[in-house]
C-alpha cells in the first residue's frame, strides 16, 4: 500500500503540516485511493517543511515545502515541489546520522518499526552485560554530556552505580531552553523510543528502577508524543516490572516544567522535579550521590541518552572512531536564526564553523553577509568571521573563548546591533536568574544599566562592564550567571565598532 509521510514535528506543524494532512486526506477520499498517512518526525531540513514523502513500489520521494494546494500534483507525481530522495539532498547526504538515524524515517510511535530499524538491539545486548560492563562500554565510547557541559557520561554513570542504593533514579534533562537549539525536541517528536531505550539501559547499568523526563512546557507537541511513546513502550514490555522479560524493573514518567530557563541547570531541575522553587543547589554533593529526593541520580541530556542505543547496538569502538581530539562521536548541530538552509545537521566532531555556516547552511536567508554566529545558546559567545576556522569540538571552542553548549548555531546578518545583543544577554539573565547568588541576581540588572550607559555614549562604563563580567564569571553559582559574560564580552571584544558608534552618535 502507498504510504504518505507528513511530519508531526513542531517545526513542520508551525509551517502548516496539519493543513496539508487534511488536504491530503480529502484528496485521497475524493480519488478513492487506498493510502496510509504516517505522521513521522522531521528529516531536519526545516526550510523544506512541511516535507511530504510518498512511498510507492519501494521508492520514497519527497516534496517540499508542501502546501494544501500541492497535494493533487504530489499524488500525480508531477508536483513542482519535488526534491527527489531525501538521502540525495546535499544537506542530508553530507551528514553522519547515528543518533538521528531513525528520526523522520519511521512512525515515531511504532515499536515494531523501531525494532525493524535497529531499535532495542542495544538494550538486548545490555541485558546480557553486568552493570560494570555497561558503564565501561559507555565510558569507552567517549560520549560526553550533550547538554553542554561535556562531562563523560560513563564516568557519571559509574559514580551512580557505585553509590549506595537501593533507590536510584534516571532523570532526563529535556529542558532545552537554549535559543537556537531543537535537537531534543526533534528526537522526542521523531524517535522518542530511542530516548526511552537509552534511559532503560542507563537504569540497568546503575541499578535504578524509576526515571523522569523533565520536559519544558514550551514544547506541547513533544510532551504529547513522549507520553504516547511511554504508553507504547509499556505495552511492548520495554518498560514495566520486567524489561523485555528480564529481572530488571524500570518505569518512567514525563514531567512538565513551568517556564523557568534556569531549570535546565541540573540541580535546579531536581528541585523543580521535587516540587520546589527551581533554585540552584550548591555542589557538592553531586546529584550522582545525592540527587532527586536525596538519592543517587543520573541526570543526562536527551541527546546523551538517545545516543546510548546506537552505542550499544554498534559497540563503543564504532562510535569512538568518529570525532576529533577528545570530542568523540557525532554531534547534532542545529543551524538556526537568519539562515538559508536551517535545520538539524548531525556530523562527526571536527567540521569547522565556517563550513557549517557557508557550505552547509548557505549563509543568511536573503544572502546578506554573516556578521556573527552565536554558538551554544544564550550563554554562548558571538563568533566573528575571523574565528570561522574553529573546528567543532569541546576543547577547540573553549580555546577560542567560546563553548559548543548544546550545539546550536545561530546566524546573524550585517544589520545586527551587537550592543543590543549584549544588552539582551544581560536582560535575559536578569529575567531568568533564580536569585540564589548575588553576582547573577544583581549583576545582570547592573549589566543592563551599564550597557545602556555605553549606548548613551558613556565610554567610562566599558571598563565597568568588563569588571562586572569578571565578577559574574568567577562568582556565580551556575552557568546562567557564570556564562552570561560570554555573549556580552565576545560582542564587546569582536565588534567594538557597535559600542563605539553609540558613543559617537551621542557626542
Amino acid at each position: 500500500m502507498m504510504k504518505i509521510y507528513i511530519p508531526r514535528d513542531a517545526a513542520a506543524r508551525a509551517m502548516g503540516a496539519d493543513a496539508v494532512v487534511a488536504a491530503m486526506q480529502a484528496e485521497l477520499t475524493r480519488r478513492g485511493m487506498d493510502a496510509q498517512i504516517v505522521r513521522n518526525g522531521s528529516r531536519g531540513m526545516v526550510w523544506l517543511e512541511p516535507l511530504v514523502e510518498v512511498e510507492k513500489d519501494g521508492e520514497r520521494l519527497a516534496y517540499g515545502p508542501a502546501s494544501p494546494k500541492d497535494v493533487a500534483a504530489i499524488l500525480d507525481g508531477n508536483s513542482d515541489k519535488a526534491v527527489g530522495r531525501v538521502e540525495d539532498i546535499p544537506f542530508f547526504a553530507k551528514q553522519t546520522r547515528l543518533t538521528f538515524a531513525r528520526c523522520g524515517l519511521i512512525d515515531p510511535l511504532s515499536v515494531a518499526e523501531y525494532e525493524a530499524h535497529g531499535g532495542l538491539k542495544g538494550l538486548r545486548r545490555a541485558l546480557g552485560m553486568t552493570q560494570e560492563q555497561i558503564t565501561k562500554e559507555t565510558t569507552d565510547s567517549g560520549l560526553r554530556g550533550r547538554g553542554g557541559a561535556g562531562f563523560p557520561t560513563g564516568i557519571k554513570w559509574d559514580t551512580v552505580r557505585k553509590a549506595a542504593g537501593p533507590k536510584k533514579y534516571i532523570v532526563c534533562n529535556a529542558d532545552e531552553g537554549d535559543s537556537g537549539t531543537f535537537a531534543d525536541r526533534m528526537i522526542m517528536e521523531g524517535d522518542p523510543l530511542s530516548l526511552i531505550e537509552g534511559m532503560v539501559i542507563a537504569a540497568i547499568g546503575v541499578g535504578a528502577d524509576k526515571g523522569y523526563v523533565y520536559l519544558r512546557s514550551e514544547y506541547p507537541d513533544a510532551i504529547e508524543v513522549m507520553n504516547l511513546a511511554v504508553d507504547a513502550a509499556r505495552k511492548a514490555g520495554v518498560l514495566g516490572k520486567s524489561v523485555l522479560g528480564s529481572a530488571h524493573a524500570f518505569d518512567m514518567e514525563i514531567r512538565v516544567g513551568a517556564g523557568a530557563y534556569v531549570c535546565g541547570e541540573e540541580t535546579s531541575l531536581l528541585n523543580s522535579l521535587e516540587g520546589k522553587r527551581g533554585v540552584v543547589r550548591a555542589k557538592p554533593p553531586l546529584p550522582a550521590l545525592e540527587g532527586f529526593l536525596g538519592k543517587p541520580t543520573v541526570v543526562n541530556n536527551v541527546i546523551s541518552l538517545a545516543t546510548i542505543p546506537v552505542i550499544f547496538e554498534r559497540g563503543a569502538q564504532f562510535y569512538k572512531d568518529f570525532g576529533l581530539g577528545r570530542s568523540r562521536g557525532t554531534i547534532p548541530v542545529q543551524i538556526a536564526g537568519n539562515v538559508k538552509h536551517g535545520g538539524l545537521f548531525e556530523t562527526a566532531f571536527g567540521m569547522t564553523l565556517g563550513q557549517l555556516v557557508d557550505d552547509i547552511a548557505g549563509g543568511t536567508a536573503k544572502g546578506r553577509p554573516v556578521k556573527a554566529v552565536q554558538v551554544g545558546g544564550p550563554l554562548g559567545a558571538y563568533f566573528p568571521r575571523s574565528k570561522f576556522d574553529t573546528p567543532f569540538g569541546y576543547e577547540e571552542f573553549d580555546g577560542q573563548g567560546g563553548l559548543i553548549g548544546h550545539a546550536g548555531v545561530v546566524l546573524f546578518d550585517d544589520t545586527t546591533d551587537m550592543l543590543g545583543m549584549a544588552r539582551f544577554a544581560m536582560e535575559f539573565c536578569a529575567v531568568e536568574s533564580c536569585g540564589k547568588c548575588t553576582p547573577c541576581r544583581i549583576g545582570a540588572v547592573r549589566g543592563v544599566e551599564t550597557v545602556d550607559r555605553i549606548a548613551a555614549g558613556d565610554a567610562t562604563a566599558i571598563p565597568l562592564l568588563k569588571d562586572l563580567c569578571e565578577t559574574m564569571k568567577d562568582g556565580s553559582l551556575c552557568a546562567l550567571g557564570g556564562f552570561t559574560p560570554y555573549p556580552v564580552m565576545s560582542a564587546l571584544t569582536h565588534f567594538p565598532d557597535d559600542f563605539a558608534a553609540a558613543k559617537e552618535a551621542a557626542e
Partner: protein
Amino acid sequence: MSAAALSAEAIAPRLNEILDDCMVLEGPLLPILHAVQAEYGHVPQTALPQIADRLNVTRAEVHGVMSFYHDFRQEPAGAHVVKLCRAEACQAIGANRVAAHAKKALGVEWGGTTKDGTVTLEPVYCLGLCACGPAALVDGQVVGWVDEKKFDAIVGDLK
C-alpha cells in the same frame, strides 16, 4: 468566572480530586499547579491553603513555588494567549520588529491583555522553532515565520 465561583468552598471538591490524583506522585506540587491552572485558567489564591494543607507545607511555600515559575498565573488571562518568541535566533530574523508591531496593534505591553479581553500577549524564550522564526505559540499551537502580516491574520482569526 465570578469570585464566588472561585471561593475556597466552591473549588474544594474539584481541588480535592486533583490532589488525590497527584499525591501518588513523587514531588507532586508542579503537577498539582498545572492541573489547577488547566481547570481554572489560572491558580486561584483561594486554592493555596488546601494545597498547602495536603502537602503539609506552609501556604507561603506554595505561593513561593507558584510565583517562581513564569507559567503559573495569579489572574486569569484573556480568552486567547499569544506568545511571541523573544530569544536570539528569532531576533536574528526580525522578532523585535514583529514584537513592536504586536504591542502597537494590540495596544498592550508584554503580559498585557487587550481591553476587550480577547488576547493576552506574552513573551516566550524559545519554542525550539529556531530555523523557522520568528516563532509564536497561539493557544498552544505552534506557528512559524510570523511577520507583521501573519500576526495580524492570527489575531484577526481570534477575534
